[in-house]
């Protein structure tokens, strides 16, 4: 056995360079995914080396999980096998930048925080607030189609990517799309790869659409107290001429955690957080209209400081950190819903959590229809499976779907993370088989065991 591990180590070292392959057991144990420990950790320095590693893995039937900073590695089922942890962190260079064209091409391992700092010099930004925040890498954001609350205005990673370069299991480097903002030549493989969770190929480079950073921003909180009032106000805001950047609803537990930390005694109700951007006149208009809309239903609108707002937004996207320390075990669910059903879903989920005697923080991007739930409590381990089943039923009964983003020990992750595949499953399996015939890329992690 040892000899096999050694020979794989040297073969990989030949592809990426000796210092970039680690096979030391403790280091590997620290990189476990879903309880499975890889044999080797490989830091690929170039696109060509990623392709080389994939070809080697495919030829020798070694399972690979590609990753950047690992901020979203908890998402997905545990792998059914795992040999190589393929890190793209070293690939963090800007390949092409044309600020006047509002486009940039970067390597997949670039941290979002570094990219935002770089773009900030020209007054530009990438309007994404994905899970993992500044630590998320571009490759990871694309592989998981992560977006965050700015989606209301700017869309998700899927809408912002113009082109990608991908390493395939045959060791090829291929491209789809390009650097221009409009392009319909050939199949849109960007769409296929974005959100494919590293199961089809490894995104090594991406060209992205950039946006001017708003001149200034402001955030208001509308303390609606109840979900009914929150729904009423959400309708009014979405039907108004206002064009907020984000519109987020927090349930009482979420506002409580955000406002005072997990152990405060002060009770909070349901809150709507609204962020707008633009010139002072545009912000004034938002302030005035939001206050007016609030008043018409007896709800106060208060502007919060930039600092508080930043804390809220960064907290929302680093959901799990909120619980760190206080609650070691947490279940994070993401529901995708028709936008009008978000409040009703929250109320059904809340009732379910109460029935199981666990607590639930709910954060809903109400204009988009994406809801994140954080569930915790002493009994969580015992009831997690049932909570997922019932909450998924609630989402489906409202015409939506539900996936598990993070789960506690003992949860039946193999069967329950993605929910039942629909009538597209055979087609998805076909796509997987066409691009990764040996099933070496993130095996078992995606929908239906793909």
């Amino acid at each position, binding site marked *: 056995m040892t000899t096999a591990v050694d020979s794989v180590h040297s073969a990989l070292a030949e592809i990426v360079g000796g210092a970039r392959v680690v096979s030391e057991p403790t280091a590997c144990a620290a990189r476990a995914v879903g309880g499975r420990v890889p044999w080797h950790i490989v830091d690929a320095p170039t696109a060509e080396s990623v392709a080389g590693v994939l070809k080697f893995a495919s030829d020798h039937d070694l399972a690979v999980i590609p990753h950047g900073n690992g901020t979203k590695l908890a998402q997905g089922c545990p792998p059914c096998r795992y040999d190589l942890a393929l890190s793209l962190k070293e690939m963090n260079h800007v390949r092409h930048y044309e600020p006047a*064209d509002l486009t940039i091409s970067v390597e997949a391992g670039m941290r979002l925080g570094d990219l935002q700092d770089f773009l900030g010099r020209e007054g530009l930004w990438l309007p994404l607030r994905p899970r993992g925040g500044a630590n998320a890498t571009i490759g990871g954001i694309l592989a998981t189609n992560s977006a965050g609350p700015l989606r209301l205005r700017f869309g998700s990673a899927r809408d912002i990517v113009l082109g990608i370069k991908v390493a395939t299991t045959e060791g090829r480097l291929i491209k789809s799309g390009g650097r221009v903002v409009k392009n319909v*030549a050939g199949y849109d493989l960007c769409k*296929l790869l974005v959100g494919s969770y590293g199961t089809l190929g490894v995104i090594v480079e991406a060209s992205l659409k950039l946006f001017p950073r708003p001149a200034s921003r402001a955030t208001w909180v509308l303390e609606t107290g109840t979900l009914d009032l929150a729904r009423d106000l959400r309708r009014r805001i979405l039907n108004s001429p206002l064009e907020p950047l984000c519109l987020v609803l927090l349930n009482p537990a979420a506002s409580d955690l955000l406002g005072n930390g997990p152990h405060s005694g002060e009770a909070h109700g349901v809150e709507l957080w609204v962020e707008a951007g633009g010139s002072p006149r545009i912000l004034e208009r938002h302030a005035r209209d939001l206050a007016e809309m609030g008043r018409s239903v007896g709800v106060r609108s208060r502007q919060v400081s930039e600092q508080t707002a930043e804390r809220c937004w960064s907290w929302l996207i680093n959901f799990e950190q909120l619980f760190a320390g206080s609650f070691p075990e947490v279940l994070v669910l993401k529901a995708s819903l*028709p936008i009008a059903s978000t409040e009703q879903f929250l109320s059904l989920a809340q009732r379910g959590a109460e029935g199981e005697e666990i607590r639930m923080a709910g954060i809903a991007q109400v204009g988009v229809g994406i809801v994140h739930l954080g569930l915790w409590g002493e009994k969580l381990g015992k009831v997690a499976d049932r909570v997922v089943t019932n909450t998924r039923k609630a989402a489906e009964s409202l015409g939506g779907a539900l996936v598990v983003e993070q789960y506690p020990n003992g949860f039946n992750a193999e069967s329950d993370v993605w929910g039942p595949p629909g009538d*597209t499953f055979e*087609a*998805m399996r*076909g796509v997987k088989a066409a691009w990764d015939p040996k099933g070496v890329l993130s095996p078992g992690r995606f929908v239906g065991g793909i």
Partner: protein
Amino acid sequence: MKPTALVRELEKILGREAVLWRPDDVMLYEYDGLSALHPPDVVVFPRTTVDVVRIVKFAASQKLLVVPRGAGTGLSGGSIPWQGGILIAFARMKDILEIDLENQRARVQPGVVNLDLTLAVSDAGYYYAPDPSSQKACTLGGNVAENAGGPHTLLHGVTTNHVLGLEVVLPSGEVIHTGGKFWDAPGYDLTGLFVGSEGTLGIVTEITVRLMRKAESVATLLAVYDRIIDATRTVAAITARGITPAALEMIDGFTLRAIEEATHAGYPMDSAAVLLIEVEGLKEAVEEDALHIESVCQENRARHVRRARSAEERDLFWKGRKNAFGALGRISPSYYVQDGVIPRTRLPEMLEFIGQIGTKYSVKIGNIFHAGDGNLHPIILFDPRDEDESRRVREAAGEILAKCIDMGGSITGEHGVGIEKINLMPFLFSADDLDMMRKIKGVFNSEGRFNPGKVLPTGKMCGELRASVSPGGVL
């Protein structure tokens, strides 16, 4: 003349009123916006998904080719039955199945005309954003197949950014449902893959789209220039100021004189170029942006900037733009529209290049661009009866698209590859790139019976096409 066995079988499935087969009838389906001519063997008109499934299953059992068609306005030959077969025309699947304003969604059959959807929700203050110039005629099914754009996609994105779910009939006759009314359906984004796949992976029978709320305020500006270069510089300067207009169109002097004679939109007859710029949004934002844009235009030597004072005047500005192709048709027997894309900062250089190409090949080229996103539509005028001129047009077009590729751009921004640009694909994509696309095609359409000869070149086809496809016009 008697119907063939194939026709009789299809008549049994759909009824006689849903099948066309006489040469005079099917001849109308031998071309679309590209005048490469090849008639289908038979044209069928399904009313429901079930009808489509029955046609497709029958075709599968007989190993017949199948080509879908909306309104036939496509410019790349996507709906031309290049190798014959059954043409499925969606003219009778034109119901808006559901308008769900609370969720900002609509569910439609593929034969619904683009503009009809907007009209259906307009009174409630909503619209469907992608607006191809042919929006009065083109269908949403065709828009999905080609991933259609339009002038107003600069701010809001193209078709793929507005489609959330599809019902698709695969070549086997199996029906699948991708996405839905919500974002992020678990699994691969097959909706995103199907949009723009030009009917080569499956036939779309139902579409769920996003509806958008109309902006509170709109300002439409017409900036007039004495030099083309100043107009193109303005485009870059507007982007550099951090303003994203809803639309930013450029029309050169030659084209604009043709338009003005046809539509009397009020464009100045003696200018070198105009920019048609629209900003929309909150009243305050529109006022600020409009003032900024006016000053950017003036800094870049616009002769003057006019702002539409009424909805009627706005419509008039746009009428000229949207009827440009027709207007050029008045002064030339035919024309060939290009659809290249370049990084928008390279516009000045590109326009100069196009001018040189016109001189080199002695052809007249009009320019009408989605300047804001670098999507060019050079229109080369010609007489198809003049063989030498037709050859020069093809060569001029080839050089323009090669230049787009050189600049890091694309050969098509919104019209699709179809049969028209299939031979250019190897210049844009490597053999590996194309091969990975073929693998995807193999998953869905392994026998190649669905819309054969489109998008992906095969070795055999290249030679044939080079010999026989000629650029064409819509007249």
